[in-house]
């Protein structure tokens, strides 16, 4: 690969190049050729090709895609279903939306290939209703594909029929879990059930169902056109191909990137991302969304792949990547993610429903400056029990932001509970605005802007802030022209 180019665009190959509302443009870039090619092969040959490519599920779990297809194929049933999981819900992640908006046909084509391989004649795309543009473009794409006969009966003149319908989700994060997703499509409450049985045995309406994520599908046509060998030459030993990340946070170039597996976090953050904003110091990077963990300086040179990220205490997840700098308080970061999980837990199993709530409350206590060392013990035990006992992937990973920040930033937690200080200066309850009497000229400006009259002092004499009244709004700090107010 050319040294200056850290990215390869496979899943994103057409995004930004074609008009997503014109099927001819997709076809002009070899669209639907993979489907035509697949239909010349036996389903087993196609599955074998996918297996040899080493493609693993891009929704986060990393299950080998070819194997998943094979499992669904092997179950005998009159009706089977192929589902596209487009219920992207990680905060700050929009990989799937971009693919659906920029290249909807690739997903349709891959689903049809999947249908051919598994023996399904019906495809369903479960997409959040909050993605109206993606829905619109999918509808247009499905209509165009039907007109060309690329969906419908006797595709490519062969004895293969396949059609796709849309199903809308209401944006519940847990509906990205495949059993919950299926229940939601069935009109039931979107909550997971214990696996086994896996959807490949009993899924939508009890029929064998193959669920793959948008980005996984987007890789399929390329594997068939360029060959599994080509695909498998990219990436690491156990993680092949590329991964799309939504790079966000305190980097200069936030955006959607696609890098080969094995790229290091350093390359992503500093070379592609252009380094940390405003010349600040890198502190941590959060991968895997609410299910992932925070990695630090020492993880920067680890090649990114499924297994390395898990070994480091995080996970691939669907591809959210949030970069933090020295101003970010890691306790607050953990609290932010727990807040999300508490909202998004379906409530079915006790450890997730109640445990995450308690984790959040303990973190809140700590950021309020009321935490104790005992709370740190509780966080760890509770976090581990939630991971160990929760019903689905949501609960089994939800304590990761807490556990990984405790692992990597324990001193910061200690500072909160022992010294009652927030080293990053983010936890308001732990901050004090103090007037340096040597620098204060007694201009009274601070006292005048203070909304709660916490500042007192004679004119031309040093002023003082009454800490018991101060609400830490920072108004005095901003107004002081003499730099006499500092934060402790």
């Amino acid at each position, binding site marked *: 690969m050319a040294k200056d180019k850290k990215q390869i665009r496979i899943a994103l190959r057409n995004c930004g190049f074609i008009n997503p509302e014109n099927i001819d443009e997709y076809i002009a870039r070899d669209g639907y050729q993979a489907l035509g090619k697949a239909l010349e092969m036996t389903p087993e040959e196609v599955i074998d090709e996918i297996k040899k490519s080493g493609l693993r599920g891009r929704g986060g779990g990393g299950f080998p895609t070819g194997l998943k297809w094979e499992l669904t194929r092997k179950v005998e049933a009159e009706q089977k279903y192929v589902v596209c999981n487009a219920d992207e819900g990680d905060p700050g992640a929009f990989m799937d939306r971009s693919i659906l908006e920029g290249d909807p046909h690739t997903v349709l084509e891959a689903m049809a290939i999947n249908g051919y391989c598994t023996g399904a004649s019906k495809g369903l795309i479960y997409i959040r209703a909050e993605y109206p543009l993606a829905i619109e473009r999918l509808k247009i794409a499905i209509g165009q594909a039907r007109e060309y006969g690329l969906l419908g009966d006797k595709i490519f003149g062969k004895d293969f029929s396949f059609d796709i319908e849309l199903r809308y989700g209401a944006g519940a994060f847990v509906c990205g879990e495949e059993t919950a997703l299926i229940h939601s499509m069935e009109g039931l409450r979107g909550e997971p*059930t*214990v696996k*086994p049985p896996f959807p490949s045995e009993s899924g939508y309406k009890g029929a064998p169902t193959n669920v793959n994520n948008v980005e996984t599908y987007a890789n399929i046509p390329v594997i068939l056109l360029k060959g599994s060998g080509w695909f498998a030459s990219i990436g690491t030993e156990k993680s092949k191909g590329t991964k799309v990340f939504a790079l966000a946070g305190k980097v200069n170039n936030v955006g959607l990137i696609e890098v080969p597996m094995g790229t290091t976090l350093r390359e992503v953050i500093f070379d592609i991302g252009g380094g940390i904003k405003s010349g600040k110091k890198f502190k941590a990077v959060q991968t895997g969304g609410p299910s992932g963990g925070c990695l630090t300086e020492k993880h920067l040179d680890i090649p990114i792949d499924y297994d390395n990220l898990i070994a480091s205490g995080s996970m691939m997840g669907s591809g959210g990547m949030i970069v933090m700098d020295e101003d970010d308080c890691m306790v607050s970061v953990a609290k932010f993610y727990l807040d999300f999980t508490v909202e*998004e837990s379906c409530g*079915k*199993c006790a*450890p997730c429903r109640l445990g995450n709530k308690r984790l959040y409350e303990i973190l809140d206590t700590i950021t309020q400056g009321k935490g104790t060392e005992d709370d740190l013990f509780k966080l760890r035990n509770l976090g581990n029990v939630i991971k*160990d*006992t*929760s019903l689905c992937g949501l609960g089994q990973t939800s304590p990761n932001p807490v556990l990984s920040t405790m692992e990597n930033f324990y001193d910061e937690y200690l500072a909160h509970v022992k010294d009652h200080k927030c080293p990053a200066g983010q936890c308001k309850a732990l901050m004090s605005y103090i007037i340096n009497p040597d620098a204060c000229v007694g201009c009274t400006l601070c006292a005048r802007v203070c909304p709660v009259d916490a500042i007192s002092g004679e004119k031309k004499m040093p002023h003082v802030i009454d800490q018991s009244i101060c609400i830490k709004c920072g108004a005095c700090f901003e107004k002081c022209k003499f730099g006499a107010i500092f934060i402790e």
Partner: protein
Amino acid sequence: MDIVKLTIDNTPVVVEKGTTVLEAAKTVGVEIPTLCYMKLDDMEFENKPGGCRVCVVEIEGRRNLAPSCKTECEEGMVVNTHSVRVVNARRTVTELILSDHPFECLVCSKSGKCDLQTLAQDLGIREIHYQGEKSTYKSDKSPAIIREMDKCIMCRRCETACNDVQTVGTLSAIYRGFKSVVAPAFEMDLDHTNCTFCGQCVAVCPTGALIERDHTWKVMEAIINPEKTVIVQTAPAVRAALGEEFGMEPGTLVTGKMVTALRKIGFDYVFDTDFAADLTILEEGTELLGRLSRFLSGNKDVKLPILTSCCPAWVNFFEHHFPEMKDIPSTAKSPQQMFGAIAKTYFADKLQIKRENLVVVSVMPCLAKKYEASRDEFKVNGDPDVNISITTRELAQMIKNANLKFTELPDDDFDRPLGESTGAGVIFGTTGGVIEAAVRTAYELHTGKELDRLDFEELRGLEGIRSATIDFDGLPINIGIAHGLGNARKLLEDIKAGKSQFHAIEIMACPGGCIGGGGQPYHHGDVNVLKKRQKAIYEEDAGKTIRKSHENPYIKKLYEEFLGEPCGAKSHELLHTKYFDKKKKIEI
């Protein structure tokens, strides 16, 4: 049969393929604590959402702990049910559940019978390390059922009972995460929903979240009021279960002790709903024969099959869910209401008191009876035929309040005239009993011949839907039986589709019939309790000298002195009712 060999707590176990780890552990004496799990064999009730995570165990080679209630045994599996990791997880999860539970045990009606309390005690939890906000919900007080969802632990048993078993669909989980709770749609009060008040949700609730509306105090107020004459009727299934509340073996018949206790509590007359059950048979049986003979003579307007109507939850069910079929069930009132109507007329006249001064109390295995008693059509000038309906559990509480040593009480007999009953009245308490009682009478009324046998084994049992053909001296009568509203629904759908071949169908809302009613002592998931109660009911029937309703001498006297003939004008006025279309039309 495929066999699986595994190891549980170092003990080799051999089980049939498909057995769960929880069940396999039981076979070698390893009890794994459970909370949300509940399974009633033969009753089509199985609740194992895998939600509470109390039953988790460690399985070698698996990353996470596994819920033993949902995990099937696999060859070579090595299971540890009580490792430090497991015990810590189990305790922590239990503490979490307790951390969101009101600590009202001292005044909770479920105290001492609460599965959560038992679990906490079994695990020896003395401190809750993870305290925090508790979820609160508005409480909902219907005439029959009270919902205090602050005490809900999301075990979903009620949801399973309401949806899977009863197919009523009133209760389901709503909201997400910490706020999630089981409730009617839009968190409506039960009163405004299609709830049938069958009370099966209450029967399976592990905590005090779902309980009956307690009326024991109202009963005491009536008893101490010198202006009131207070009489009580006891339903057939009560006597087969009441003893359990006093530590007696399930299935112990306590009819005589119950009568003594009721007298001691202060009721002026102690009567038996079984008497009214005999009356029901005469009315319903006559109605059946009437419809049948009109049908056989070619009248196409006659609706068959005739459906029994003594179960109030069942009546609610078809009024809400199948109102278009409301002219199919028998118009006969339930025994409770027949008793009330006769007591407030015939018996009040005998005592020469005004109906307003006669208080009729019923002891029922049922919660829907509370609602039934409050129906407007069962009131005269605002005075209900049955003033107060209490459950078996409430009666037990009253006996305890009266400081009676129940197990040591001598036997006594019901008062006359409304206390005399036959074996036919007794078997109303179990599924299949009403129709068997009806057969005994209808056969003899129709054929004019005496039955040579009284035990219709073909109508008995616990299978959800049963059928039998009884030969009415050359006329084959096809009989269907369903218990559990889900099973009732199946038969109703058949009738609707014109596929039903039955002449008469007995329907009981509760699995097992009244023995499994929502007001009975809690079975805690032990289906044997219900089976033993059923056995006791048939024993009482077998021990009766008179076993056919139409031979009850006091029933005969009632018709001679007061009613005239079955299904006559007086009967229609007092003993029959009509049904309403209560289908909910919810507009969003």
